[in-house]
């Protein structure tokens, strides 16, 4: 079992207007096998947390720690973090010109495993995973995310989750922009990854809708850069009914 531990994390960004504090003391401990939902209104800092865990250079960590089984994650480069077992499914996956999905997936798998996957089984695994996520085979030869619809991009993020077998996955609003059918397909993919075992999941979402398909063990409500409340799945039900109003933000959490 592994543990990802975030302690009193303060994060800011530097803009033309100066320094802006975004995360104001976030603490969160997550173990493999657990699923944590992080819910919160727009602009509360959810993506910032996700990007900081992954190591995006834009975000300055002013204080606090992130450790993976005691190892200092903040000292690692972005690719080292991925090889250590962290995975980020992005809210806005990036288009990469010139690189086919096939090439990209094989290169990523090789980087993470430290050796090239056996071609035969790998090809089979990729095909099967694509089929389960209802991704058409021709996407294998398309450039990464190039010209993909929002839903197609999200499905490809989950494809990578399923193929790369991380220890911890941060899924940043994987549900947003999906219609119900796509949401089901994507949720099934996440559940398969969870059921396969050995995965801790941080499910970032604005809405409660996805929690009908993916059951969280813990729910954390994120408001203005810190966790305002936490509890079990019942907290999500409450948010569905009441929205984020009682945290004094005019936003609705229900779908």
């Amino acid at each position, binding site marked *: 079992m592994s543990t990802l531990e975030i302690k009193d994390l303060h994060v800011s960004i530097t803009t033309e207007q100066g320094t802006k504090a975004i995360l104001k003391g976030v603490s969160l401990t997550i173990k493999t096998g657990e699923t944590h939902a992080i819910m919160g209104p727009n602009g509360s800092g959810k993506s910032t947390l996700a990007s900081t865990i*992954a*190591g*995006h*250079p834009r975000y300055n960590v002013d204080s606090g720690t992130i450790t993976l089984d005691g190892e200092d994650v903040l000292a690692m*480069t*972005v*690719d080292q*973090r*991925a*090889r250590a077992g962290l*995975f*980020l499914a*992005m809210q806005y*996956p*990036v*288009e*990469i*010109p*010139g*690189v*086919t999905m096939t*090439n*990209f997936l094989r*290169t*990523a798998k090789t*980087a*993470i495993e430290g050796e090239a996957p056996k071609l035969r089984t790998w090809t089979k695994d990729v095909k099967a995973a694509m089929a389960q996520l209802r991704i058409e085979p021709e996407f294998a030869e398309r*450039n*990464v995310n*190039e*010209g993909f619809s929002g839903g197609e991009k999200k499905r490809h993020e989950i494809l*990578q989750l399923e193929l*790369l077998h991380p220890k911890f996955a941060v899924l940043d609003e994987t549900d947003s922009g999906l219609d119900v059918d796509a949401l089901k397909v994507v949720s099934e993919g996440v559940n398969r990854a969870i059921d396969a075992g050995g995965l801790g999941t941080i499910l970032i979402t604005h809405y409660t809708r996805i929690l009908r398909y993916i059951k969280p063990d813990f729910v954390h409500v994120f408001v203005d850069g810190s966790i305002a409340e936490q509890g079990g799945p019942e907290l999500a039900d409450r948010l569905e009914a009441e929205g984020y109003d009682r945290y004094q933000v005019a936003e609705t959490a229900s779908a």
Partner: protein
Amino acid sequence: MTELTQEHATDSKAWSQDFIKGMTEEGESLSEINPESGPLGGSAAKAHSHGGDSHGGGVGVPDSSRAGRLTSYKLADFPAITGREEDWRFTPLKRLRGLDRVGIKGQEINGPAPLVEFSSPDAVSVETVGRDDVRIGSAGIPEDRVAAAAWEHFSEATIVTLPANYEGTIDDITTLTLTGQGDAPAAAHVVIEAKQFATGVVVLDHRGTAVLSENVEVLVGDGANLTVVSIQDWNDDAVHASAQHIKVGRDAKVKHVVINLGGNLLRTTPSARYTSTGGDVEMLGLYFADAGQHLEQRLFVDHSTKHCKSRVTYKGALQGDSAHAVWIGDVLIRAEAEGTDTYELNRNLILTRGARADSVPNLEIETGLIEGAGHASATGRFDDEQLFYLQTRGIEESVARRLVVRGFLNEVIQQIRVPALEERLRESVERELAATPV
């Protein structure tokens, strides 16, 4: 399907996916131009002096139309280049080291021509001939002052002949290695002829240091199938203008490949013309511009006969300060060229800040009776977000960069289909990447 994007990606951070639908159609203004002239402009064009005309576009012809551009073997017919001409507006004239000013204020072009060495299959002949050889001038007429200067001043030409019915394979290629002999302005002339039904591959491999203006004539006989690859892998200080004139016979196919890698300023101007029906031109280009390099490729496909085809695919990567690539793709479908099928594409990938790509497709259509005509042009940027994305998948920065560039350029390399060359080009690309100044 036509898409057109002209993005000068230096001014926007994001790699944009915008494809602006559109097409350049200027057929109306073209119909009266040289109505009787053949694919080479005919004898009238050779005899006609436009020396007094201050516009590079010729007499009474809109500058925007490619059909009206002056062609002449005589240097004196071309006015001095100012840099404001459509044809020259992207070229840093100062860096041409005099090639643009031959005949003006005593500027000469009499340096030693590149040393030509060759390897070829027995059946293919490679000859060195004098200026008076009758085969010189059979495929093209200079279309700019720099090419005319070379035409007027070269002393010997190299002629490669693939005999009729010769069946060369992709492993059995002819290679001319042209090694520059220093930085005195020089002129060179090469003629490559594939006789009727000949099949084969000819490679021009330019290296060393040179300030060179060169004319390459490519004659593709009826039913022939010729691949010509022109590699420019000069030393960093080289300046090279290469006008490559391609003449395609009936039912003939030519694959013309331009590889621009090394040199300070490279200006490659391939033009293809058809003599009859059923001709097929495939133009491929690959360039990799580093800091300080100016790589310019301007091509022209002149559809003047029925039922011919052209496909153009040029891709370039750019990195480093002041790396500059220019791609101009002029395709003209004349009124008589019914049944034409053409598509041209240019893609640029900018790897670092400070590099700039100009990409201008220009399709002129004088007849509606065509199979298809389209173009696409886009300039993308490899940016920090893309790098971050790849790194979050465990991929190291240097590997990520390579992955992107290799993938991007591979599309062209694969289409060359000459195994020995593909290998060499992959290595060259790796070398360019290893030199990344970031």
